C-alpha cells in the first residue's frame, strides 16, 4: 500500500541484538538522560510570589476612570453597552446637580453602572467605543467569589481609586497604563 504522506516511518521489527537484550545499557542511557534534567532550568514560576509579565495588550477586568482631579469621566452615553457583544453592561444616567462638579467631569453621569463579569468576554470593545476614556481593561484577572450575584460588579467595584485621596491605590490600579503614552 502506498503511503498517503511522506511522513511515515517504518517500524524496526528486527530481533534485538545481544546488547539490547541486556537492557542495562539502555537503562543506563535512560538514567543519564533523566540525570541531565537535574541541571536544566525549571520553567515553573512560583505563582503568587512571582508573576509572569503581561503582554502590553492584556485585557483584564474593567475599570471606570477618573481624571487627575478625581472626577468621573463617564457620561453614561451608553456607547459601551451598545458595543458590548455579550450585553454585559447596563447603566442609568443622571444629570449633574450644581455643587457636584468635583464629582463628575461633565453634566451627565452614570448613576448606576453594572458589568456582569460572568457575561463579559473581555473583548475590550467597550474601551474602544468609549469617547471619554472612561472605561478601560486593567490587568486584574483572577476574581473569585462564592456567589454568582457577586460577579455583577457595580460602580463602586469598578471605579478607580481617587487620585488625590488615595494616590497609592490609584497608581497601583493604573498599572502599566501609567507608563504608556496615551494617544489622545
Amino acid at each position: 500500500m502506498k503511503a498517503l504522506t511522506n511522513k511515515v516511518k517504518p517500524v524496526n521489527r528486527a530481533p534485538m541484538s545481544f546488547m539490547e537484550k541486556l537492557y542495562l545499557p539502555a537503562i543506563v542511557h535512560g538514567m543519564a538522560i533523566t540525570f541531565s534534567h537535574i541541571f536544566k532550568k525549571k520553567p515553573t514560576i512560583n505563582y503568587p510570589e512571582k508573576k509572569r509579565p503581561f503582554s502590553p495588550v492584556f485585557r483584564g477586568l474593567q475599570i471606570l476612570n477618573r481624571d487627575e482631579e478625581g472626577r468621573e469621566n463617564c457620561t453614561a452615553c451608553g456607547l459601551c453597552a451598545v458595543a458590548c457583544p455579550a450585553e454585559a453592561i447596563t447603566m442609568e444616567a443622571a444629570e449633574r446637580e450644581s455643587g457636584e462638579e468635583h464629582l463628575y467631569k461633565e453634566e451627565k453621569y452614570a448613576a448606576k453602572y453594572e458589568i456582569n463579569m460572568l457575561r463579559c468576554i473581555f473583548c475590550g470593545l467597550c474601551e474602544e467605543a468609549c469617547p471619554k476614556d472612561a472605561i478601560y481593561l486593567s490587568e486584574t484577572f483572577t476574581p473569585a467569589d462564592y456567589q454568582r450575584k457577586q460577579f455583577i460588579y457595580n460602580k463602586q467595584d469598578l471605579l478607580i481609586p481617587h487620585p488625590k485621596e488615595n494616590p497609592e491605590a490609584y497608581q497601583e490600579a493604573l498599572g502599566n497604563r501609567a507608563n504608556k503614552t496615551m494617544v489622545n
Partner: protein
Amino acid sequence: MMLQIIDLAFILEKLILIVVVISASLVIAMYTTFAERKVAAILQDRRGPNRAGPFGMLQPLADGLKLFFKEEIIPDFSSKFLFILGPALAMMTAMMTSAVIPWGDVIEIAGRKVSLQIADIDVGILYVFGVVSLGVYGIMIGSWASNNKFSLLGGLRAASQIISYELAMGISMISLLLITGNLSLKQMVLQQQHGFYNVVYQPLGFLIFLICAFAECNRTPFDLPEAENELIGGYHTEYSSMKLGFFLFSEYINMFVSSVIMSTLFFGGYDIPFINEAAMFSTNVLAIVGVVALMIKVAIFIFIFMWVRWTIPRFRYDQLMHLGWRILIPLALFNMLATGALSLWMK
C-alpha cells in the same frame, strides 16, 4: 547484686538504641517520601513541594497529619481482624530488619563500650532474609482480607514476585558468603575495613542483589503489586487513612533498610573509603563519623532507587517473571559456581 546492675545497664543501653534506631528510621522514611517527591520533581523539571515550611520541609508532617484525619473505612465484606493485621505486619517486618544492622562502631560512655548494633547475631544475614520474606505476608494478608479482586490480584503479584526474586537474591548472597566466610554483618564490615569492598569481588552478585532489592521493595520497575493504572492501587485499594499510610510508609522503610543492607554487604557499611580513619579519630568521634559515612552511602542508594523509579517504566508481568526465572536465577547460579571455583583455585 553486681551482675544485676550490669544487666540493667545492658538492657537500658539496648532499649535506648532500639528507640533511637526505630525513631530514626521512621523519621528517615518520612523524609524519604519528601525526597522522593523532590527528586521526581527535579528529574522532571518541576519544583516539587515547596509550600509547607521552608523549602517544603514540613510537607511529610502535613501528609502524615492528613492521613490521620482521613476517614477510617473498613469494608463490610472484609475480614476485619486480618484487614487490620495486614498493614501492622507490613510495618513491623519493615522495622524488624534494622535490629541486626551495625550502624557504627562502638562508643564509650563512662568507661562502658556500647556497640552501635542492637543484636550482633552470628546468622545476621539469614535473619535479614527471613524477616524480608515475612514482609510479603503483610501485603498478602491485607490484600486477601480486603475481599476485592484488584487487591487480591495485587497480593498475588506481590507474593509471586517476591518468591521469584528472593531465589536469585539468596543465590547471589551465597556467592558473597563464599568470599566472606561468615554470616555476621558486623564481621563483614570489619573484613571490608581492612581489604577491598565486597563489590570489587562480587560485581555481578551486587548487580543481581540490587535488581532483586528493587523487586523486594516493590519499587518501579517492579511495582506491579500496586500498579495504579492496572489495579487501582493493587493490594491497598480498600485501605484508607493511616492503615494506607502504614502500607506506603513500610515501603519507604523497606527501601531505607535495603539501602542500609546493600551498603553494609557490598560497600563496607560504616567504613570510610580510602581512609584509615581508626588512626585519625578517637573512639567516640570515630563511631559518629562512621554513622555519617553509612548514612551518606544509604542516601546515595536511596537516590538511585528514586532515580530508577522516575526513569524506567513498569515491566509487563510476563517480562517480570521472565527476568526473574530465566535470567537472574541462571546468572546468579553461574556467579555462585564461578565464585566457588575461583576461590578454590586461589587457595
